[in-house]
């Protein structure tokens, strides 16, 4: 067994140990320490496999019938490393977070479920047969569902969110099961090697791709299958939200890359245009919802939809370029997409953990009730600021690098390659640009309204800084983000070799350079390190000049300029809702916000107003327009079917009898 194998086995064993430890001895540091060790092992295993050491195994006795087939190639290694890294940060954070008074997160169930969830996520990319993948997938779904429901005794909404999540994730599972079963049936074997070698008829290939795509996109939170995400993420405990949002949704992307590009070996251009369109739609829709919502965790959840959308734009573009015989561009697009997966995992972990700290300290997720945390939680504020900078794709943040790479691959489409590319890629660039712009507005809102200025609510006023373990967890994520932002060359070779699994024929060295990123064949270069460096130099220069030329008078602290009126109260501050109002107005037709003005006239006269109530909310339009009618229809069917099952045993037996007769009749007619 190679090093990768040992490490992988160690990671799984540690997860199991941590889970048992959590069950037996529910102290948060027991399971936490185990999970940290497991995460480290998984991350190292991933890195080792990306560097070039591969490992595969067949354990026929572990499961009846099929056995367990495992294999770790660089693509699997990349996702495993990301999961491991996220788990380390989350586990460190969780040690302190689980002790939050009143949240009951140090119960046996939660303590055991977190390591199991991590283990399942480590197992998914390592699976090398359909049955193993499905098993790991289901384990991941179940453990995450348990964790989402962790606080169901405290809040009623948790139950509803859990229901949505359970239904969506199992529908997705059913789709993946159906698709892969079709695939395995066509390929006469269920190991990935057999699937790769299979020659399927085009119709079957299309069916496999479309059905599995539906399943995987539901896990990745892609519109219109995203509805569970903005419900489950806010209601889950925050470190679980971080795990789900930074590690679990990635598995959806992994599935698409693995099945579509690796196992099916690419496909016709329309597959990938579908993927690209779904990605673009999610990117825009997700960020539009994020920019208008005032719930911090919901905002982050929608931002996940956006970022997964961007990843799928990259994956779709990669598949499309491969289908139109541009291997260099395909490799570049996939590299960009996978790098974005890594970057997103980094900043989303940080942001969700910071949101958890805020929630813990203030009891509020609503940005309109936050504010003023800069003075009360200085470290968390700085950490959230780093995360927000990275998430808004501005230099020197890490998402800027991956989005830059993605744009570089998209704008190099050749008009000669066909109409589809020439029409699609400009639109994709426009979508990415708009979502990047809106992401800036979103995170300025989240940081500016949530952390700066003065507290808008009692909770925010009483907030205190988080315990050291939570800060350490966030700090680890922040360091990872900054490292990826300034020296993306740390991750690029790994990402490149992962991309090479999907496109073995891509020329190597597409993106090269340690300090300055140079692209093969173009003069497009970017040096995140130099940008950050020159920014620092310029900052110092400006500061020095100011000190030198303008040091005549000491700085004075003065009252806020209140236009001469009385002191400004927190109610006069701009809220998140008012911040987003202009954008909500611009995108009125897309968002369809609901406003309700309720004027109560005074008793004496209809012209005197006693009270004006104003309600405004922006419902998820997809949910409202697509799911509500669907659910109503299902509900109606259920109601009408209820009459069939009245509890009479005779009736049930009669159904069986009718079915038997009916089948015999059909057979008689057909034969």
């Amino acid at each position, binding site marked *: 067994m190679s090093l990768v194998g040992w490490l992988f086995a160690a990671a799984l064993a540690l997860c199991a140990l941590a889970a048992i430890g959590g069950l037996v001895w529910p102290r948060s540091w027991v399971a936490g320490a185990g999970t940290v060790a497991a995460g480290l092992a998984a991350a190292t295993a991933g890195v080792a496999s990306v560097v070039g050491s591969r490992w595969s195994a067949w354990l026929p006795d572990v499961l009846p019938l099929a056995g367990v087939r495992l294999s770790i190639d660089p693509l699997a290694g990349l996702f495993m490393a990301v999961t491991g890294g996220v788990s380390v940060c989350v586990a460190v954070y969780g040690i302190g977070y689980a002790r939050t008074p009143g949240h009951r997160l140090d119960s046996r169930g939660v303590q055991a479920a977190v390591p199991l969830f991590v283990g399942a996520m480590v197992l998914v990319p390592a699976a090398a047969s359909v049955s193993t993948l499905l098993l790991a997938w289901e384990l991941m779904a179940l453990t995450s569902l348990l964790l989402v429901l962790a606080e169901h005794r405290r809040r009623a909404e948790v139950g509803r969110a859990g229901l949505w999540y359970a239904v969506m994730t199992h529908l997705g599972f059913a789709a993946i099961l159906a698709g892969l079963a079709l695939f395995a049936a066509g390929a006469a074997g269920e190991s990935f090697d057999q699937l790769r070698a299979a020659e399927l008829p085009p119709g079957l290939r299309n069916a496999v791709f479309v059905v599995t795509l539906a399943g995987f996109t539901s896990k990745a939170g892609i519109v219109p299958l995203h509805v569970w995400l903005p419900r489950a993420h806010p209601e889950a405990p925050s470190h679980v939200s971080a795990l789900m949002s930074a590690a679990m949704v990635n598995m959806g992307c992994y599935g698409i890359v693995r099945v579509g590009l690796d196992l099916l070996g690419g496909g016709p251009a329309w597959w990938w245009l579908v993927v690209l369109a779904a990605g673009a739609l999610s990117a825009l829709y997700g960020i539009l919802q994020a920019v208008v919502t005032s719930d911090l965790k919901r905002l982050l959840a929608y931002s996940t939809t956006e970022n997964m959308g961007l990843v799928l734009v990259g994956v779709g573009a990669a598949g499309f370029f491969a289908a139109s015989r541009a291997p260099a561009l395909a490799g570049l697009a996939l590299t960009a997409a996978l790098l974005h997966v890594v970057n997103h995992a980094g900043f989303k972990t940080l942001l969700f953990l910071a949101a958890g700290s805020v929630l813990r300290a203030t009891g509020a997720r609503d940005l309109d009730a936050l504010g003023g945390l800069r003075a009360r939680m200085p470290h968390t504020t700085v950490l959230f600021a780093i995360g927000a900078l990275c998430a808004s794709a501005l230099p020197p943040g890490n998402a800027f690098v991956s989005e830059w790479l993605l744009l570089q691959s998209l704008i190099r489409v050749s008009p000669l390659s066909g109409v589809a590319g020439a029409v699609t890629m400009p639109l994709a660039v426009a979508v990415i640009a708009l979502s990047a712009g809106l992401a800036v507005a979103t995170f300025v809102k989240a940081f500016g309204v949530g952390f700066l200025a003065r507290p808008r609510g009692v909770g925010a006023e009483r907030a205190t800084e988080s315990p050291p373990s939570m800060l350490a967890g966030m700090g680890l994520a922040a360091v990872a983000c900054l490292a990826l932002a300034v020296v993306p060359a740390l991750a690029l070779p790994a990402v490149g070799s992962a991309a090479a699994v999907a496109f073995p024929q891509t020329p190597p060295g597409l993106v090269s350079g340690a300090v300055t990123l140079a692209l093969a064949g173009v003069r497009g270069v970017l040096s995140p390190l130099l940008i950050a460096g020159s920014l620092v130099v310029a900052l110092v220069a400006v500061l020095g000049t100011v000190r030198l030329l303008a040091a005549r*008078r000491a700085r*004075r602290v003065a*009252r806020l*300029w209140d*236009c*001469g*009126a009385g002191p400004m109260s927190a109610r006069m501050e701009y809220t998140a809702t008012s911040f987003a109002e202009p954008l909500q107005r611009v995108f009125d037709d897309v968002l369809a916000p609901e406003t309700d003005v309720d004027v109560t006239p005074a008793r004496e006269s209809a012209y005197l107003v006693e009270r004006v109530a104003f309600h405004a909310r922006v419902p998820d339009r997809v949910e409202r327009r697509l799911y509500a009618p669907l659910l109503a229809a299902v509900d109606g069917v259920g109601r009408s079917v209820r009459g069939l099952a009245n509890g009479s045993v005779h009736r049930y037996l009669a159904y069986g009898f009718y079915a038997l007769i009916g089948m015999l009749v059909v057979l008689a007619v057909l034969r």
Partner: protein
Amino acid sequence: MPGLWRKIRKTGRVAEPAPARVPAEVPAAAAELAGSIQIRHVDAGSCNGCEVEIGSVFGPVYDGERYGVRLVASPRHADALLVTGPVTRNMEVALRRTFEAVSEPRLVVALGDCARGCGVFAGAYGVVGAVGDVVPVDVEVAGCPPEPTAIVAALRGLTGR
């Protein structure tokens, strides 16, 4: 658009030639500002007569801007307060706070007879007093309302241009 262009061509320069500067003593604070004064206007209870004249000062004919004077929106951006009217009870605190909001070195110009000594409103029940009773005044401009030339001369005294 062509119509506007023709009008601009036909009108030409409206600003009157700058009159000779009347030498006057410049407040110490103003000397440091060296040719650039940003003004925040505070109406402490004026009848709006002075405001009309201020409007003229920054119109094309007198063009106060050519002497380095500019009206700004925030006292933080300002060097001088241009206060008109007697200070009414409702504006007393506001005037004080506006003065505090201006960063050093700061100046106060009391514009018009009301600002200097309450004018016809002296002794009225709603009036606290002249501007000088509330904040320290550096320059006074007499008149009810003062002529734009007088205001321009006072402002030039501050900018030294």
